């Protein structure tokens, strides 16, 4: 009996011993090229942004005081997070069933579904956004169809819903792919087991499948949310004055007003807010079990 009790522990110890035995020395240097690139193109410019936000035009926190004293800035910051949250939510609602469908269909249909995700991905964001302008504008395709059906046209271009629609379409692959990669590893025989224990099919899905798919949902949601926060082209082209997001304000400060300090401060505020949100979300993602993957 004790022998079987210790078995799991022992095999875990064996595994880690095995890994450390075959870990070649200096493996860390394999990461060197990536680290170098990140240092040059990310850390260094970011350092400059932070530095200038505190020093340009004068040393101090003036830029931050300015940012938070302006009602417009606070509204735009809040709107940026609200839009990111909407884009994340709408993407999730579209992506979850799509990813699930990808796991249950045949090989050819799955290939077609993957292509549907990836082909728009290969097009330039500008092209896609201009396509959305054509679709959404007041005399655009959607409103023509609505009018043709005898319905009253809706205002989509230069509104927040228009921005959310456009951003969701651009960001959808970032939600679908992580969810799909987790879903395809879920052992669906667990659902059969749940049904044998008395669970109705929808209950088995909600109580077994959905929790096991959550790591993919979290990963996709975080990627989409963070990308949304810094989105520039799509909101700039699809949005109007009442749907300006923080990236446009930064662009305005830096490129139009040449006010690098204020632009930098805005960037730093966005960065810090993102980190705070991530820190709040982190406990959600810490799961004790490592995976649901079926054993070989």
């Amino acid at each position, binding site marked *: *009996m004790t022998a*079987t*009790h210790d*078995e*799991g522990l022992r*095999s875990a110890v064996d595994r880690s011993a095995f890994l450390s035995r075959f870990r070649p020395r200096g493996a860390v240097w394999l990461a060197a090229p990536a680290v170098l690139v990140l240092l040059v193109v990310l850390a260094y410019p970011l350092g400059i942004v932070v530095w200038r936000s505190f020093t340009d035009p004068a040393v101090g926190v003036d830029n931050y005081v300015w940012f938070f004293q302006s009602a417009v800035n606070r509204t735009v910051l809040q709107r940026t997070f609200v839009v990111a949250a909407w884009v994340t939510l709408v993407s999730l609602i579209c992506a979850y069933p799509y990813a699930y469908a990808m796991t249950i269909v045949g090989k050819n249909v799955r290939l077609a579904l993957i292509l549907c995700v990836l082909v728009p991905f290969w097009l330039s964001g500008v092209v896609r956004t201009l396509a959305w302008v054509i679709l959404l504008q007041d005399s655009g395709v959607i409103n023509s169809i609505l009018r043709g059906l005898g319905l009253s046209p809706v205002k989509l271009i230069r509104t927040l819903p228009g921005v959310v629609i456009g951003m969701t379409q651009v960001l959808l692959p970032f939600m679908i792919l992580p969810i799909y990669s987790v879903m395809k590893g879920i*052992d669906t*025989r*667990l659902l*059969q*087991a*749940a*049904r*044998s*224990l*008395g*669970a*109705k*099919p929808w*209950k*088995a899905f909600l*109580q*077994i499948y959905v*929790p*096991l798919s959550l790591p993919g949902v979290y990963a996709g949601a975080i990627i989409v949310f963070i990308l949304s926060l810094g989105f520039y082209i799509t909101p700039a082209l699809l949005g109007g004055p009442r749907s300006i997001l923080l990236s446009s304000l930064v662009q305005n400060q830096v490129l139009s007003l040449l006010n690098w300090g204020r632009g930098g401060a805005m960037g730093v505020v966005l960065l810090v807010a993102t980190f705070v949100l991530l820190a709040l979300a982190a406990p959600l993602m810490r*799961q*004790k*079990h*490592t*995976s*649901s993957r*079926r*054993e070989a």
Partner: protein
Amino acid sequence: MHAPQRSAGAAIEIRKASKRYGAFTALNDIDLHIRPGEFMTLLGPSGSGKTTTLNLIAGFTDISSGTLEIGGKSVTGLPSHKRNIGVVFQHYALFPHMTVGKNVAYPLTLRGIKGDDREARVKRALDMVKMADFAHRYPNELSGGQQQRVALARALVFDPPLLLMDEPLGALDKKLREWLQLEIKRIHRELGTTFVYVTHDQEEALVLSDRIAVFNGGRIEQIGTGRELYDSPATLFVGRFIGESTVLRGSAEISGDETVMTTGGQKVIAHGRLAGGARPVILLRPERVALKRPGADVVSGENRLTGTIAEAIYLGSGSKYEVRLADGTIAVVRGPLGAADFGICDTVDIAFLPSDLILLPDDASADVTLT
């Protein structure tokens, strides 16, 4: 610290059941009656229809034709979640995001059992499989044997009248498998639940079962106790699948009440004759055959075939010999502890009484399916 209460096991009545997948017939017109509280093993090689039968009982697949009754009621069209049957899978199927305790509580939660009652029943079920100390662990922190014990507790915690097990020990090593076999046997004795157990391991079937149904090619070849299947197999397939055996083939003549077979130029006499015109073969069990020096220790009426020892294996509890007979057949003979030792290439006689051999109709499929 008591095991779940003894429950009345459910009877299963399968009549003329078939299962077809397109042109492929997985199960061909089987009849199977399982008594309440019985430990019935479905034994057979892979693809023989035993798992299909289990899936039909569990409600994972629908029957193509025929009837299936559990506890006297037809379950045709009843989905698996309404059948109230415990199922244990080869792949454990524990929910990785739930602790052991939550896994075992799951079927109770689904049945609206809450609070102290649920806790008590979970504890009782985990005590039964000796896993009570692991209630707060996650499945991936447990070994295979521990996971399967938890799965067993989960399948029994709601006191189902019927437990189905699909090769539950298939992924475990031999020592653990043997220990768990005895645990399963003990639990079956304590509960009185009907157990239906699928395996391809005939030894496991013999250890566990009240009765065994031997499957081959989508049909049931024979149903009986281990002793019945071993001592009087109905078909050559059953004879070869259960236990070790030697098959003698040759030209046969009927003389009165005896069948005389000539194999490798030597005669073997068997009592009785086969009904119909079937071509007979002789099945020998290794422990019913004695090894003797050529011409020595003659017992009246015994059959003797001369051969040479091709392999001699010392097993601790005795020895096993493979004897190459005149026609090339390899005969397996078990020498008891303390019997005379023979070496490779020794010329020996294998000796057996007509009452110790089994006369069966030949069946070419028995050789093909045994891989």
